[in-house]
C-alpha cells in the first residue's frame, strides 16, 4: 500500500517537473522576476523558521523547569515507614506515656544500643509525632492494650530522605544521618521493616515543623476559601461595571477617565494591592488579619480590572446589528442587554473570569502583606479564621533548607500546576462549547 502511494507521488512530482509549473520553486530561472519571487519565498521561510525556533526554545525552558520540579517533587508523594513492634504496656497506656512506648519499642528492635547519644539518634528515627498516632491508634482499638502489635509508623524526614536517596543510589548525599542510623536503616530494610508507602499525610495535614508531617490540605482549603470570596466579590462587581460602562454610560471625558484608570489598574504590581488591603481592610475596617476573607477581598481588587476589561471586550464582540434587531423589536435597553448582549457575551466573560481567577489563585505577594504568610497547622474552618494559600505555602517551604521540605516544595508546586491546568482546561472547554460564531 505504501509503495503504491510512493509511486503515485513520484509520478505526480515528475509530471509537475516536466510541466515546469511556475508555482514550483525549482523551475525558477535567474531572471529578475524569478529572483524576486525567490527572495520573497526565502523571506517567508525565514520568518516561519524563526517562529518555530522561538517556540522550540521556550518549550525547552518550560520542559526543563517542569522536569526539574517533577524530579525533585516526585519523591515527596512517597514516605518511608517503619514496621514497629509496639508493646502497648497497660501501665504506660494508663499513664499516657506514649513517648515511652515508642522508645521501648525502638529499643526492642535494637537491644544492643546502650550509649545515650546513640539512643537519642535511635529515637529520632521515627517521626516526632509518633506517640500521638499511637495514642489515637489505641483509642480506636482498645482491645490491643497489653499486647504487642506490628504498627507502620512514619519515619522521620531525615531517615525518609536518606532511604529514598538510597533507593535512587545517591547514598553519599544522605543529609543529617549519622553512620549508626545508616546501619539501622539498612538493617530495617533488610528485615522488611522499612518500606516506601504513599504519603497520605501530604494531602491530609496542614503545615508542620516536621517535614514528614507537613501537608497541603490547610493551604488548599485556604486557597479555596480565598478564591470563593474573590469570585463572590469580583464577578458581580466587575461584570456590572463593564455592562454599565459599555452599554449604558454616555461617552464623555468622565467615562474616558474611568476607562483609563481601569486599564492602568490592571498593570499595577500586585504587591501594591496587598498594601492597599493592609491599610484599608485591616487598619481602617479592622477585618481579621491573615484571614481568607481579607485575602479574597485583596485578590478581588487585583482581578477586578482584568474582569472589567475582559467583559467589555466580549460585550464589544457582540455585533451592533443584534442590539439594533432587539431594539427595533421594542426591547428596552435593559432588555437588550440582559436578554441578548450579555447572554451572547457570557462565554467570553466566563473565560476571562476563569483566567483571572487562575491568576488570583497563583498570587502570592499581596497575601504576604496582609499576613496570610503565617504558619497554619490547622485546617481553616471559616473564611474568618487564619489561613494561608497554596502558593504562599510553597513560598514558606521554599525558605526551609531541610531536604524534606525541598521535596515538599516541589510537590506543592506540582499540585499547584495541576490545579492551574485544570482551571485553564475549564476555561478552554467553556469557550469551545458555548462560543457563538458570528
Amino acid at each position, binding site marked *: 500500500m505504501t509503495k503504491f502511494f510512493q509511486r503515485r507521488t513520484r509520478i505526480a512530482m515528475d509530471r509537475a517537473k516536466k510541466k515546469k509549473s511556475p508555482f514550483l520553486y525549482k523551475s525558477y530561472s535567474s531572471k529578475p522576476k524569478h529572483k524576486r519571487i525567490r527572495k520573497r519565498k526565502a523571506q517567508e521561510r525565514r520568518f516561519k523558521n524563526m517562529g518555530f525556533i522561538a517556540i522550540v526554545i521556550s518549550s525547552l525552558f518550560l520542559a526543563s523547569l517542569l522536569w526539574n520540579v517533577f524530579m525533585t517533587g516526585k519523591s515527596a508523594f512517597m514516605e518511608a515507614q517503619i514496621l514497629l513492634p509496639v508493646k502497648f504496656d497497660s501501665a504506660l497506656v494508663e499513664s499516657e506515656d506514649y513517648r515511652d512506648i515508642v522508645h521501648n519499642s525502638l529499643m526492642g528492635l535494637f537491644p544492643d544500643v546502650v550509649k545515650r547519644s546513640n539512643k537519642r539518634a535511635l529515637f529520632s528515627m521515627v517521626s516526632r509525632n509518633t506517640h500521638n498516632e499511637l495514642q489515637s491508634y489505641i483509642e480506636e482499638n482498645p482491645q490491643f492494650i497489653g499486647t504487642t502489635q506490628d504498627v507502620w509508623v512514619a519515619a522521620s524526614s531525615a531517615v525518609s530522605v536518606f532511604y529514598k536517596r538510597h533507593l535512587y543510589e545517591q547514598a553519599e548525599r544522605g543529609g543529617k544521618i549519622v553512620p549508626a542510623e545508616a546501619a539501622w536503616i539498612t538493617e530495617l530494610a533488610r528485615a522488611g521493616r522499612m518500606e516506601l508507602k504513599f504519603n497520605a499525610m501530604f494531602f491530609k495535614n496542614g503545615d508542620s515543623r516536621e517535614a514528614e508531617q507537613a501537608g497541603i490540605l490547610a493551604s488548599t482549603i485556604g486557597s479555596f476559601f480565598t478564591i470563593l470570596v474573590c469570585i463572590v466579590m469580583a464577578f458581580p462587581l466587575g461584570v456590572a461595571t463593564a455592562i454599565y460602562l459599555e452599554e449604558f454610560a454616555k461617552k464623555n471625558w468622565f467615562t474616558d477617565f474611568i476607562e483609563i484608570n481601569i486599564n492602568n489598574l490592571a498593570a499595577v504590581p500586585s504587591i501594591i494591592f496587598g498594601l492597599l488591603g493592609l491599610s484599608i481592610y485591616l487598619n481602617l475596617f479592622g477585618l481579621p488579619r491573615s484571614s481568607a476573607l481579607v485575602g479574597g477581598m485583596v485578590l478581588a481588587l487585583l482581578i477586578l480590572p482584568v474582569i472589567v476589561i475582559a467583559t467589555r471586550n466580549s460585550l464589544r464582540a457582540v455585533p451592533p446589528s443584534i442590539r439594533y434587531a432587539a431594539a427595533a*423589536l421594542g*426591547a428596552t435597553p435593559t432588555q437588550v442587554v440582559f436578554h441578548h448582549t450579555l447572554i451572547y457575551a457570557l462565554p467570553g466573560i466566563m473565560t476571562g473570569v476563569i483566567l483571572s481567577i487562575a491568576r488570583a489563585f497563583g498570587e502570592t505577594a499581596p497575601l504576604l502583606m496582609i499576613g496570610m504568610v503565617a504558619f497554619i497547622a490547622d485546617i481553616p474552618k471559616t473564611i474568618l479564621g487564619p489561613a494561608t494559600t497554596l502558593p504562599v505555602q510553597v513560598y514558606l517551604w521554599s525558605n526551609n533548607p531541610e531536604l524534606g521540605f525541598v521535596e515538599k516544595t516541589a510537590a506543592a508546586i506540582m499540585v499547584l500546576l495541576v490545579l492551574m491546568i485544570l482551571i485553564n482546561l475549564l476555561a478552554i472547554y467553556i469557550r469551545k462549547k458555548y462560543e457563538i460564531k458570528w
Partner: protein
Amino acid sequence: MTKKKAVSNDNIRMRTQGLSVFYNEAQALFDVDLDIRANTVTALIGPSGCGKSTFMRCLNRMNDYVEGCRVTGKVRLDGFNIYKDSVDTILLRQKVGMVFQKPNPFPKSIYENVAYGPKIHHLVNNKDELDALVEKTLKRVGLWDEVYDRLLAPGTSLSGGQQQRLCIARAIATKPEVVLMDEPCSALDPIATARIEELIAELEKKFTIVIITHSMQQAQRVSSHTAFFHLGRIIEAGETKKIFTEPEHKKTRAYIAGKFG
C-alpha cells in the same frame, strides 16, 4: 410579477412633515415631506448616502441609538407625532417593525427568534397561544415547511434567504402596522430575493411596508409608490408606475436610467 394595487384610497398611515436630521453639525435630511399610504408598499430609491436609511430610521426612532443625531420636524403615525416626549418608543417599535439589510437573527433557536417580540410585549397569555402565533407567523413567511422539524435549531444555522425570512417573521410577530425594510435583499441571491419579493406582495395585504432598494427592477416589481431621494431631499415621490415611466424631474430620469448613483 406582483399585481399592482390600484390607489383606491388616500388612507395615510404615516406622514412626515418638515423632517430634518442632523448628525452632529452635518445635516442629512432637509425638510422631507412624505406620505406613506396604508396597506401599500412604498419604495425609497436613491444613490448611496442620500438619506434613505436615515429617513427610515426616523420612522421608528431607531435614530435615538445613533450618537449625535438630532431630529426636527414631525413624523405622524395615524396622526400622532411620534417625536413627542410622551411617546413610548417601546410601543412605537411594536407598531413599526424593522428588517435590516444583513440578516441578523438572534443566535437563539428559530422558535425563540419569532417568539421574542410577542413575549416582551405580552401579546400572548400562555405557551399554547405563543406556539400558535409562532406557527402562524412562520407559515406566513413560508418558512414553516422548511423548519417545522427543527424549531429549536439556532436561527443562525439557516441559509441567508431563510434567515432574512426569519427576520421578517420576527418583525411581523409583534403585529406591527408598518414594516420597514432596509435593503432586505441586498445580501441574497436571486432565488432568495424572488421569495422575499413574493412575501412582500403577500404581506402588503396586512401591513404597510416601506422598503429601501437599490434595484430599480425590484422597486417596480414590489412597490406601488416610490420616493426618489437625492442629497437628503425628496426629488420626486408618487406612484411607482408614473415615476418609472414618465418622471417629472430630470435627476429622477437620470437615476432610474442608471446614469448616476
